[in-house]
C-alpha cells in the first residue's frame, strides 16, 4: 500500500471528524442585561424580562409594540426594554429563566409565576438576587398600599412569613375581580340532547354518558393530552370528585398528599376500567395539545377539560363550521354521590402568584415601583384592561365598552388577538384584572354560561386549596429534591396503572415507595409552612 497516500487519507478523515464534532456544538447567545439612563434625558432605561403570552406572540413581537404599553411608559416616564423568552410554553420559559438565573446577569424587572419555582421569590431574596419591596411600596406605591391595607387576606398572600413582600402582583380584587375559575370539564351538549342524556353530575353518571356516546357515536369520548396526564400533579379530570387535590391540599388544617390517600386507589380503579373500556383516549400520554385540538374540533371526542376562553372560544366556531348544530357546554365539577357539592374547583387566589420582582442590581427601584403601581390606579387599571379611550373603548353610562377595533377587527383578528394587540387584559400581568373585560371577551353564549357555572362552587375551593405558603431556603432545597423524584415516580406509576400495565394493587407499592422517598418529610415541611401562613 502506498503509505504516504493512506496517511493523507487518515489526516483528512480526522479533520472531517473534528468538523462533525464542531457542527454538533451550536452556540447560544444571551441578551445582555444592563440598566442605565439614556444619554441626555431623565428617563430611566429598565430591562424587563417576561414571557410573552401566546395571544400576544401571535400579533406582536414584543410587549413594547402594544400601544397601551407605550402609553403606560409615556405616562410614568420610564423606558422598558423588554426581553422575552423565545418560546411561550411553560417548560421552555422555566428553562430559560433557570439558565438566566445561573448566568447571574439579571434584568432589572422580571415577571413570572413565582409560586411555581422552587423556593419561590423568598429563596431568590435570600440568595441576594432580588429586592425586598416593603419600604418601596410604603413610600412609592400608594395604590397597591391602599389594597394591602384594605384586604388583609390579600396582604397575607403577598407577604412572606416574616412580613416581607418580594413580588409586585397581578391581582383579582374588588368589585370587578370576582371571576376566579376559568376552566373545567366540557361536553358536546348537542349529543347529550340528541341521546336524551342529562348533564352528568356524579362519576357514575359520567360513566353512563361516556359509554352511551361511545356506543351511539362510535368514538372514544373523553380526550386529554400529555400536559394534563390523568392522576398526576397536572391532572384536571375526575380526581376532585374523589375529594383529593392534585398534590398537596388542606383537610381541616392538616396538609395531605392526594395520591397517598386510600381514595386515590378508588380513582385509579375507575380510570383503569375506563381506559380499558375505551372511554378515555388511549393515546392521552402521547397526545400534544394540537392533536387534542384536532380530535375535539373534528368531532372525534365528546368531553375534555378545557378553558372557557381558549378552548371553547376556538372549538365552538371550528365545530359549527362543519355542523351548525354542534354545541359545547360547561359541566359542573363532578362529585361521587348525588347531592354532594364540589370542593376541588380549580379556582385562583386573588394573588395568582404572578408578578414582577426587582433584581438587586436595579439602579432605579423608585421609578420602577412608581411605574408598576400606576397600573393599580383607576386610570392605570382602565389603560391596562381597556386600552386607550376613544380608540379601543368608549365609556357608556360609566362602563367601558370595547370598540369595533377589538370586537369586529377590520384586519380579521380574533377578539383575543385584537385585545392582545392593543392592551393587556386576556392574560396575567402586573396590576388588577377586570371582569368587565371577560363579559365582553366571552362572545359565545356557552362561554357566558360557563363562567357562571364554574363560579358556583368556587368558594368551596378555598377550604381545601393550599394557600401560597413560602418555604425557607433550606426547606425549599429539601422539599424540591424530594418532590422532584416523587412526582416523576408518581406520574410514571399512575400512568402505568391507568394504562393497565400495572395492576391497581400496586397502589400500595407506590405509597410505600413515596414513604421511602421521604414524602413524610415533604408533608411536614408543607404543614409547618401552612401553620406559619395561618399565623401571619
Amino acid at each position: 500500500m502506498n503509505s504516504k497516500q493512506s496517511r493523507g487519507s487518515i489526516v483528512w478523515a480526522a479533520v472531517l471528524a473534528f468538523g462533525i464534532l464542531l457542527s454538533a456544538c451550536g452556540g447560544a447567545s444571551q441578551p445582555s442585561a444592563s440598566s442605565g439612563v439614556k444619554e441626555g434625558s431623565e428617563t430611566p432605561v429598565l430591562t424587563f424580562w417576561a414571557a410573552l403570552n401566546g395571544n400576544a406572540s401571535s400579533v406582536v413581537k414584543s410587549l413594547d409594540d402594544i400601544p397601551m404599553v407605550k402609553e403606560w411608559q409615556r405616562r410614568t416616564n420610564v423606558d422598558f426594554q423588554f426581553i422575552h423568552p423565545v418560546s411561550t410554553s411553560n417548560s421552555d420559559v422555566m428553562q430559560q429563566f433557570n439558565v438566566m438565573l445561573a448566568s447571574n446577569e439579571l434584568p432589572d424587572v422580571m415577571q413570572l409565576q413565582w409560586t411555581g419555582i422552587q423556593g419561590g421569590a423568598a429563596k431568590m431574596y435570600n440568595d441576594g438576587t432580588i429586592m425586598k419591596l416593603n419600604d418601596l411600596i410604603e413610600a412609592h406605591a400608594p395604590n397597591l398600599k391602599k389594597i394591602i391595607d384594605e384586604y388583609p387576606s390579600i396582604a397575607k398572600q403577598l407577604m412572606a412569613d416574616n412580613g416581607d413582600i418580594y413580588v409586585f402582583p397581578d391581582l383579582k380584587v374588588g368589585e370587578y375581580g370576582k371571576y376566579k375559575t376559568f376552566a373545567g370539564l366540557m361536553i358536546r351538549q348537542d349529543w347529550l340532547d340528541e341521546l336524551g342524556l342529562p348533564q352528568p353530575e356524579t362519576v357514575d353518571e359520567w360513566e353512563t354518558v361516556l359509554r352511551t356516546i361511545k356506543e351511539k357515536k362510535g368514538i372514544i369520548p373523553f380526550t386529554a393530552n400529555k400536559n394534563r396526564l390523568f392522576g398526576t400533579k397536572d391532572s384536571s379530570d375526575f380526581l376532585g370528585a374523589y375529594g383529593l387535590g392534585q398534590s398537596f391540599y388542606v383537610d381541616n388544617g392538616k396538609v395531605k398528599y392526594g395520591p397517598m390517600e386510600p381514595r386515590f386507589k378508588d380513582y385509579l380503579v375507575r380510570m383503569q376500567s375506563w381506559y380499558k373500556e375505551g372511554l378515555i383516549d388511549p393515546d392521552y400520554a402521547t397526545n400534544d395539545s394540537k392533536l387534542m385540538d384536532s380530535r375535539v374540533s373534528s368531532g372525534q371526542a365528546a368531553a375534555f377539560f378545557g378553558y372557557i376562553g381558549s378552548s371553547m372560544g376556538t372549538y365552538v366556531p371550528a365545530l359549527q363550521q362543519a355542523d351548525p348544530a354542534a354545541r359545547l357546554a360547561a359541566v359542573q365539577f363532578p362529585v361521587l354521590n348525588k347531592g354532594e357539592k364540589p370542593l376541588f374547583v380549580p379556582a385562583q387566589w386573588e394573588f395568582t402568584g404572578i408578578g414582577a420582582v426587582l433584581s438587586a442590581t436595579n439602579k432605579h427601584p423608585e421609578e420602577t415601583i412608581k411605574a408598576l403601581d400606576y397600573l393599580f390606579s383607576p386610570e392605570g387599571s382602565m389603560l391596562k384592561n381597556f386600552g386607550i379611550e376613544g380608540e379601543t373603548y368608549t365609556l357608556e353610562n360609566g362602563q367601558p365598552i370595547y370598540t369595533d377595533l377589538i370586537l369586529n377587527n377590520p384586519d380579521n383578528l380574533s377578539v383575543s388577538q385584537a385585545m392582545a394587540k392593543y392592551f393587556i387584559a386576556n392574560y396575567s400581568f402586573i396590576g388588577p384584572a377586570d371582569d368587565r373585560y371577560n363579559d365582553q371577551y366571552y362572545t359565545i353564549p356557552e362561554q357566558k354560561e360557563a363562567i357562571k357555572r364554574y363560579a358556583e362552587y368556587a368558594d368551596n375551593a378555598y377550604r381545601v386549596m393550599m394557600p401560597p405558603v413560602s418555604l425557607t431556603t433550606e426547606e425549599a432545597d429539601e422539599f424540591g429534591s424530594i418532590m422532584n423524584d416523587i412526582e416523576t415516580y408518581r406520574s410514571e406509576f399512575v400512568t402505568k396503572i391507568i394504562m393497565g400495565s400495572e395492576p391497581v394493587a400496586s397502589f400500595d407499592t407506590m405509597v410505600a415507595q413515596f414513604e421511602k422517598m421521604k414524602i413524610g418529610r415533604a408533608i411536614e415541611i408543607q404543614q409547618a409552612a401552612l401553620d406559619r401562613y395561618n399565623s401571619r
Partner: protein
Amino acid sequence: MRLLRDIAKHKAIYFMILPMVLYYIIFKYVPMYGSIIAFQDFRVAKGIGGSDWAGLKHFIAFFDSVYFFRVLKNTLLISLYNLVFGFPVPILFAILLNEIRNRLFKSVVQTVSYLPHFISLVVICGLIISFTSRDGVINSLIAFFGGERSALLGDPANFRTIYVISQIWQEMGWSSIIYLAALSGINPEIYEAAKVDGAGRFRQIWSITLPSLVPVITILLILRIGGMMEVGFEKIILLYNPNTYETADVISSFVYRKGLAEGAEYSFTTAVGLFQAVINFILLIGANTFSRRLSDNRLW
C-alpha cells in the same frame, strides 16, 4: 526549544490550527472550572467562590437515588444498540456508494442521505411522532398486514427501537463521509493489480477496501466508545412520556429535568454530569489501550 523552531518553520500550519486550539480552551477547558459546584451547595448569588462546600454529598445522593441504575442502564443500552446497529451502517453504505460507477446517481444518493442530518431535531422528532402515532404511516402498514393499530411511542417496549432506527436514518449519510474520504485515498493501482490476479468485486472489497478502512474504523470506534455514557437529551425529551420513562430516561434527560426543567438543583446535576464525564474518560482510555495492544491502531 524544538517547538519554537518548529513554529518558526511552519508558521502557516500553526496559524491554521490556532482557532481550534482557542475553541477547546474557551469552550472545553475554561468551563471545567465550573465543575467545582458539584462539590458545593451552589447558590447563584454567592457564586462559585462564595458557595458552601458540600463534599461528595451530591454524588452520594445520585448513587442512592432510585433512578441511578435505571438511567445508567438506559444510557448504556441505547448507546450499545446505537453502536452495534448504527456503527456498521455508514461503513457498508460508504462501500456500496464507492462501488457505484454512475457519478450522477452516486451524488444524488449521497445528497439525499445527508439531508436528515441538516433538518432540525425538533422537526425530525415531529416527523417521528406523527409517523408512529395511531393514524400514522407505520400503523397504516401494520394495519394493512392485519396487525392492530397502537400508539407506538406510548409503549416502553418500542422506545429504544424507534430511537435507534431513527438515529441510523438521521446519521447514516453524514457519517459515511469520513469513510468515503478514506476510500478515495486508496491507490487505484492496487485494485488493478488485484484484477490482474483474477480477484472479483467481493474479493476486492474484502481484501483491499476493508483493510484500508481499518485505521479509520478503529479511530472512530474508540471515539464512539468514549462517548458511550453520552446520549443527548434533546431527542429523548422530545420523544418520551411518563409511561416510557422506564426505557427512555437517560442520564442527560434526568439531568435536564432536575437541573433545568423542573428543579434548579445545579450542584446535584453538575455532579451527575461530572460522573458521566469521568466514566467516558475511563472508557476512552480503556478502548484505546485495548486497541493498541491488539493492533497498532490508536488515537495516541
